């Protein structure tokens, strides 16, 4: 445990690490600074009085606000947008989405069946959502899509990128520390010897996760102090006002496998984000074990991630193996990162798996842990002379 703390201290006393975190935070602040939407703030403020569920009580309370003389352009807009809305899940068919995806990709056999199974399972979810009137919640009314994308796609996406980079670099710094400072021979000839890798891994992974958590905490503190969410936290993310842009099937509702409020969806995204950052840490650790030069190791880390994206794009999708590679590639950390905007939903044309993000995270963690074990075993037998 003592070595763990020493290793952690080594990493967290680096000025460059904190400089990088500050640069990331500054970048996030620039994004937040350009994100203001007064109408969305207005909707959130009004929903404190009206509630977020679009029932009779909502309309009565909204009418009372209008009668109280609080007439404003935004109030009229809100009345117009919420007037006569219906449940988008009532009678909504998901089968055609799967069929369209199969038609466009030309997939057959096992993968076509998986795709159809996914959408028949989603139909049950949709029916349940329809029964519970889940879409009849306010979210941010007409400003929903923009604000949902801003928080869960843009900001979360950049945060994950920053987390993946900083955690990867911290792991490589820890693993390569002795090589960088020429202390390898001394450290590996001590009683602890090459077992020092264990506290090194634990320290660097916890430092990476800690820095990601800190960056997320500071970013979201600023984000939520600038953007008003107070009245709508419990509104469903599958609100009728939320939608997904799908170039294959056209715009469609935002359907999640489970019923998520904004708050629970936000927590789930953060949890998944931490898991993904852990995956990138493990990947960096595995690479750091094989490639001793930490500079080259980081470049290999970048190359490996880029290859995961490039291969499914370059292999012709007309070949069955091309489709298989594309569908399995979605379960890798890089593709999971790219698809972060549709986590916990049915996914898109590239995804045949139900709960793809959870499945991908589990598969990635298992494979990367095995890679790390192999790499450590290789490292233990490595000749440094």
């Amino acid at each position, binding site marked *: 445990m003592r070595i763990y703390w020493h290793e952690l201290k080594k990493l967290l006393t680096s*000025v460059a*690490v904190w400089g*990088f975190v500050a640069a990331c935070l500054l970048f996030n602040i620039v994004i937040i600074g350009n994100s203001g939407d007064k109408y969305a703030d207005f909707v959130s403020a009004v929903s404190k009085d009206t509630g977020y569920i679009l029932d009779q009580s909502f309309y009565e309370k909204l009418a009372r606000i209008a009668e109280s003389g609080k007439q404003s352009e935004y109030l009229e807009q809100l009345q117009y947008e919420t007037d006569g809305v219906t449940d988008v899940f009532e009678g909504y068919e998901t089968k055609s989405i799967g069929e369209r995806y199969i038609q466009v990709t030309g997939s057959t056999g096992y993968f076509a069946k998986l795709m159809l199974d996914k959408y028949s399972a989603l139909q049950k979810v949709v029916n349940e959502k329809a029964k519970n009137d889940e879409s009849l919640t306010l979210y941010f009314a007409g400003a929903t899509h923009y604000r949902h994308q801003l928080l869960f796609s843009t900001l979360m996406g950049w945060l994950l990128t920053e987390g993946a980079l900083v955690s990867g*670099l911290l792991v*490589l*710094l820890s693993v390569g520390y002795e090589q960088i400072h020429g202390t390898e021979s001394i450290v590996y000839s001590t009683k602890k010897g090459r077992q020092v890798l264990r506290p090194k891994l634990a320290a660097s992974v916890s430092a990476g996760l800690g820095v990601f958590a800190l960056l997320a905490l500071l970013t979201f503190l600023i984000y939520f102090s600038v953007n008003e969410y107070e009245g709508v936290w419990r509104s469903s993310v599958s609100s009728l006002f939320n939608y997904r842009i799908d170039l294959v099937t056209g715009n469609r509702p935002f359907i999640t496998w489970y019923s998520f409020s904004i708050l629970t969806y936000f927590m789930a995204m953060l949890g998944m984000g931490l898991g993904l950052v852990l995956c990138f840490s493990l990947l960096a650790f595995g690479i750091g074990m094989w490639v001793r030069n930490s500079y080259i190791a980081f470049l290999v880390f970048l190359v490996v991630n880029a290859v995961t994206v490039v291969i499914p794009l370059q292999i012709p999708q007309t070949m069955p193996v091309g489709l298989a590679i594309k569908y399995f590639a979605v379960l890798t950390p890089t593709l999971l990162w790219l698809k972060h905007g549709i986590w916990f939903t049915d996914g898109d044309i590239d995804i045949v798996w139900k709960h793809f993000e959870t499945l991908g995270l589990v598969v990635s963690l298992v494979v990367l842990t095995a890679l790390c074990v192999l790499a450590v075993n290789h490292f233990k037998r490595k000749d440094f002379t």
Partner: protein
Amino acid sequence: MVWYELRKIWNSRILLVVALLCTLFYWLFMSFYIDFFPNGHPAIEEFEYSNELLDRYGPTLEEDEYVEFISANREKVIAEMERYIKSNPVFAKVGISSYEDYERVYKKQNPTEAETEALWTLLGKESNFVRFKLQTIEWIENQYRDYPRYVSELMAEATNQKEIDRLNAILETKEYTNIMEWEVYENTVGYTVYLAILSILAVFVLVSPLIVTDRARNVHLLQYSSKHGRKILQKQLLAVLLSAFMLTTLLILIFGAIYSTNGTWVFWHSGMTSFLNGPIFLFDITYGQYIVLYIVLLYTLCLGTAAMAFLFSRFSRNLITLILKLMPMFAVLTVLCLYVFNDPFSMNNSLYKALGMIGIEPLVCGGVFIVFLAVSLYFVRREKEVEVI
């Protein structure tokens, strides 16, 4: 001495990684501009007709040539449309027996399913996309005819005298009669922006480790006690700049050769301000001059990047802390590339729009180079007196 430093920079492992990164970057961001050029219809027809215009009339299109081209091609395309209409029963089924009938249905608000099928037939492969050809001829006709009015409208909206003078000159000299197609321009801009980002990335990756690797192992102390002494840092700066120059040249040659397969070089002598192009340029330049200017700016920015990498490398304790410093700088330079190389030298350029300065692009690239080179030289000079222990 510089030769030895160059050998340290150009080592096989780094070169392999740079080559891999370049290939992956090309596949991810740049191959689109090669594989999908021209991108669909009517872009294909627009590119083909501009090539034809260039072949027949040279880099500018005069009034009489315009009249001749439009009337001859319109007749040809209408005859082709008539042939398809007569040979395919899908048209007879909805009462279309001539070009005029087709156009009447084309303008209908709510065509029936059978009419829609007939309309799409002339827009499809089976009819050699003939309706797109007509659409393109009409577009060329309208662009040529309406361009002076468009420039006059811009003049009315212009807020500074320089812009008004420039727009006036375009009208007076008929500079807008240049044949420069917008798809070619957009494609070139997209490709060159990514090439600039790739070049910066490659320069960072190649030259950054030189100084920090020596310093992390205290090799610099040994170097300072040698015959060459502290002049080594000067040689290293030279090697870094030389490497950046060589790598940029290599990237320009490789990716320029790939780009030449698009065949856009036929527009080399065409003026950029054209009735067929989008932006209006702040001075009269040809496509060829635009490419040469871009290359000069790219060299300047890459040399500035190399000087920046040299500085960060000098002040980093190890390779990881160097990367932590380089990444934010790479992000800043990427944003800079997007601002500088998107619609450069034109009134659409974001930097020009924000600051209103003609020639802001070379000023920014030159500024990056001069500032970082000057700071590097200052530290090289200071190194001669600095306490090293």
